[in-house]
Each structure stands twice: as C-alpha cells, then as structure tokens.
C-alpha cells in the first residue's frame, strides 16, 4: 500500500457507546494507534473497558435518555477531550441523522455515512424508492404511502393480493403492523392501525406490501469509501425473537451461488453510485430464491464478526480508516471467502421467558481453542446493570463448512461458563441441536413458533 498517499488517521476518537461494542471499537482504535475517549453513564462506572481507555468522561446518570442518547453531552465530551471523531457503535445514536449532523457541525467527524444518507435510509418508504432505482427488488406493494381514503387504499391493496401486511411508516421492530387477508378486513383494520400509529408515533402514515410467509432474513455487508465499494458477502439472521436477532451466520446457506453473488454485487454497485461512505448493511427477506429489500442499516451491526471471520477483514478498523478519508484497503478481488461462521448472542436473560436477568456474574469463563472468537465486556465479578440492552457476550465459531461450524458450536457451548445470572446459553445449546435450524431452512418465524 502506498502509505505516503493515505490521509492521516485520527489522533483521538470518542466512542459513544457502551458494552461489548464499546470494547470492540476501542480495540480497533488501539490497533490503529488511535487514542480513545470512552463516555459512560453512572450506571456503567464499573465497566472494565473504561480502564483500558486513554480517557473517560461521565456523561450522565444511568438512563440512556440522560446519557448515551444525550447528544449534547457526548459532543461536549468530545470538545473537552479534543477528540477528532466520534464512533457511534450500533443502536443508541448510531442512526440518528440529527446527531450525525450536529457532530459534523461541531467540527468533529462522525464515523459513518453522511447525515443525508442516514436520513434517507431511516425513512423506510424513501429507502425503498431509492433502492428500486438501483435494481434492488422490494416486496410487491402499494407505491408510496397509502391514500387517506379507506376505500381507495383497500382497492390498491387488493391489487397486490393477499396476505398483505400494513405497516406504520414510523413503526418498526414489530410495532405498528398488521397482516390482512381480505379487502373487507383491510377496510376494518386500516382506521384502527392509523389511529394507533398516530398515538404511538405521532404519524399515521401507513404503507402496504405483500406478506411473505416465513421468509429468511438475509443481509449483505458492504464497505464503501465514497467512490469505491465492496461487499463482504451475506449473513443469514433468520433466527429472531420479537425482531431481535438471536443467532447469525455467514455466508447465507443454501442460496444458489449466482443469486448470492448477484445480490451482493448489486448492493456494492448501489453504494458506488450514491457515494456511500462507511460500513452498511442491506437487509432482505429471502423467499422462493428472491431477495426483497427491507431496509438498510447505515452503521456497524451486532453480527459483523461473522463476516469478519469468513473474510479476514476488520470491519470496524475499515470504518475508521474510511471516515479519516482513506480509500478502501481492499478491492473486491482481494476478498477471499473462507468457511462458515456462526454467532450466538448471549443475553442476560432467562432462556425460557426472555425476561432480563441483570445481576452479579460470579464466574465468567469463555471457551477457547481453534475457530473460536468471543466478543464480550463482562468478567467474573461484573454486575450487569439493569438499565441497558441485555447482550453480554457474542460467541463466534468458524470452520471449513456450515456442518463443521455447527459441530464446533455444540462442542464450545459446553465449555462456556457464566454463573450468577441467567443467560441465553441454554437456548443456544438447544438451537445447536435443533433439526430445523440445522437443516438451514429456518425462516424468521421459526424461533417464535418452535416447540420447546
């Protein structure tokens, strides 16, 4: 690489997140020789990754609204520490276009795409309209928002056929949506959904699309520098519970290679055309060998390690390099795909009821050995705070084939010890033995409908 021509990296980056991703970003910075500023809430003051940071700033009390969602405090923390850039991690402010804009206006670099792109992709209807221009299919549906007139809307919906799902534009995560099976039902449900949406989100815009029965959730990881773009293949994230991913793998299994490569290339091509900058994920529903775009995430994702395992590319390090103005370090042909990776999200939750289980971890002993990666911020004696997301560790296994990765997963889960609190480790032990999951045919409804 012609190092002389590269833009210099940042001297200091502020990490505006918590938990495992805060440590993940910190590790990437450390390896890039960048100093780190970690912000934290009073609820996270015992987190050990703070001790590994160069500087730490308390930004507020435990509730996220007063701390990790407090953009002003985070920007003030960047000001007083002289950080040059802010890495938002995932969740929290990572896809908040206003925050990204404020960061840039305050003279810092937001590590992610521009506020405009975040805003565009944050609006589900606008995002779909956009991707269609770049040859990505969306689920057949009524173009744009549904008209206010119930009769007119129902007629339009009937044209695309049933079952159809009607969704609030401002909804998400399973909230503000209904599946309808007839025109009559549509007429009845539509006013109800609109008033619910108005009450819940202050916006009664709704749209409609064909409902796919138990499709798989497959996504494409991209990296782009504003000019060039590459893909890092696919991930299958069909194992979800209440729209929360539980287990992810890479690459997506049992997709014809041509279809697989075509969808990946189409995503990269779109990034090139819109001048996308940073890491991004195109999410699709996959049914009957067709990919239907559902949304784009303009940030690093929880499940990024599975793509790192099969490609050897450090996605977070690339995000930072790109934000500093460096060109992509890889061309598509440099990306060699090797083997299969599976990630289990270990949550501090009851494995049956999924109720959060914060508390003190008496013993934390992660497994080791060949083809095993664990990303976690916890340790023996750590008190899992009750205020935040319950993700406490990500167990990733990698092997030559999906079958071998499954075998490794089963073996390794036996060695993973977390005591003192309930975790979803037993759920993953069950899943690793589940025939439907093993077959690779599990769709997004699998986990909710599975017999226990």
């Amino acid at each position, binding site marked *: 690489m012609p190092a002389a021509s590269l833009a210099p990296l940042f001297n200091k980056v502020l990490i505006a997140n918590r938990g495992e991703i805060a440590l993940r970003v910190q590790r990437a910075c450390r390896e890039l020789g960048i100093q780190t500023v970690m912000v934290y809430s009073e609820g996270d003051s015992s987190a050990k990754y703070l001790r590994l940071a160069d500087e730490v700033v308390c930004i507020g009390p435990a509730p996220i609204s007063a701390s990790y969602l407090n953009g002003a*405090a985070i920007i003030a923390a960047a000001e007083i520490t002289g950080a040059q850039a802010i890495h938002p991690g995932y969740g929290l402010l990572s896809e908040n276009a206003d925050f990204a804009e404020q960061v840039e206006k305050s003279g810092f670099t937001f590590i992610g795409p521009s506020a405009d792109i975040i805003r565009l992709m944050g609006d589900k209807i606008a995002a779909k309209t956009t991707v269609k221009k770049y040859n990505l299919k969306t689920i057949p549906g009524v173009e744009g928002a549904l008209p206010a007139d119930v009769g007119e809307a129902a007629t339009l919906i009937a044209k695309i056929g049933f079952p159809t799902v009607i969704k609030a534009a401002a909804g998400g995560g399973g909230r503000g949506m209904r599946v309808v099976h007839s025109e009559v039902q549509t007429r009845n449900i539509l006013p109800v959904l609109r008033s619910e949406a108005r009450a819940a989100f202050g916006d009664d815009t709704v749209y409609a699309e064909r409902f796919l029965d138990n499709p798989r959730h497959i996504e494409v990881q991209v990296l782009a520098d504003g000019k060039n773009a590459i893909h890092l293949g696919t991930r299958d994230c069909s194992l979800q519970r209440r729209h929360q991913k539980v287990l992810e793998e890479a690459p997506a299994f049992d997709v014809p290679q041509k279809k697989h490569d075509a969808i990946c290339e189409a995503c990269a091509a779109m990034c090139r055309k819109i001048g996308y900058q940073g890491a991004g994920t195109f999410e699709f529903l996959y049914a009957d060998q067709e990919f239907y775009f559902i949304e784009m995430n303009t940030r690093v994702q929880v499940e990024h390690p599975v793509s790192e395992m099969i490609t050897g590319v450090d996605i977070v390090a690339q995000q930072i390099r790109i934000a500093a103005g460096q060109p992509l370090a890889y061309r598509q042909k440099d990306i060699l795909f090797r083997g299969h990776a599976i990630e289990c999200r270990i949550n501090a939750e009851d494995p049956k009821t999924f109720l959060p289980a914060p508390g003190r971890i008496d013993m934390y002993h992660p497994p080791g050995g060949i083809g095993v990666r664990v990303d976690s911020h916890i340790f023996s004696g750590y008190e899992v705070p009750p205020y935040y997301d319950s993700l406490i560790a990500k167990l990733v296994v990698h092997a030559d084939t999906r079958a071998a990765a499954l075998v490794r997963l089963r073996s390794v889960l036996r060695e993973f010890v977390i005591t003192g609190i309930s975790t979803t480790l037993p759920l993953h032990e069950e899943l690793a033995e589940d025939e439907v999951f093993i077959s690779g045919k599990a769709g997004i409804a699998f986990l909710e409908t599975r017999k226990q």
Partner: protein
Amino acid sequence: MDIRKLKTILDLFENSSLTEIEFCEGEERIRLSKAQPAGTQPAALPLPNNPFPTAAPTVASIAAPIAVTTTEEEFAGDVVVKSPMVGTFYRSSSPDKNPFVDVGTPVKKGDTLCIVEAMKLMNEIPSPVSGVVRQVVAENGEAVGFGALLFVITE
C-alpha cells in the same frame, strides 16, 4: 444404579458447592443436598475487581474518573456541588474578572458559583443552598464530566 456410579455422583457433588442435586434414571431417582454454611455470605469474597487496573493501568485525564466514590456522606453535614453536565469549568465570567466565589465566600441559594461551558454555551451553575464555600475542588479551565465534584459548601 450401581454403586460406582453413585459414588462418582457423590464425589462430583462433594467437590462442588451445590447444595442440592436430584438425579433420576429410569425408575431410579437420587436427591442429594448439603447444608449451606451458616453466615458465610461469599458475595464480596473473590471480588476480582482489582486485577484489571493492574493489567492495564491508565490514568483518566478527566476530572470525573471511573467510579466517582465521593458521595455526600463523605462530607457529612456539608453540601457538595457536582457538575450537572460535561464541559469546561470556569471560576469567573471572563479571564480578567474575579472568581464568582472563593473559599470562605458566603453564598445565598441561587448565587452563581461558576460556569460550565459546553458546546459554546456558558452555563452558570447556581448554589443549591445558602452557606459558606468550604472548598473549591475543580480547577479553573479544567474539563469536567457529569457528576464531577466542583464545590463543597457548609450551610
């Protein structure tokens, strides 16, 4: 169940800190239990809080460092004033002016004690009580985090 198996289970149980085991095999069923040693609360015993700083000692350069342990109780009777926001602490309204307060200054509730600048805004921090400034903890121009100790006031 043969005796060997039982012995093995017993040994396993013995060497564990479990207090109860129930074991069924076909028609067989074993339940083992152990009294918990009275009064021993091992909660804080093997607290491995310490190893980490040793492994990677870092000096946080920010006024409100990890685990602000200075709580009101430590200043029994006195009132501590903490920073309500992240920013830069200033003792006066401009460099050529005198500090708002100093050690010994009598203050009324609502009097400005200092300024915390955040995002180009000058935020005046009022005294929560009437009393006398006993201690000025933060230094002029210092960066302060949320909850950083600024003043101690004796009512």
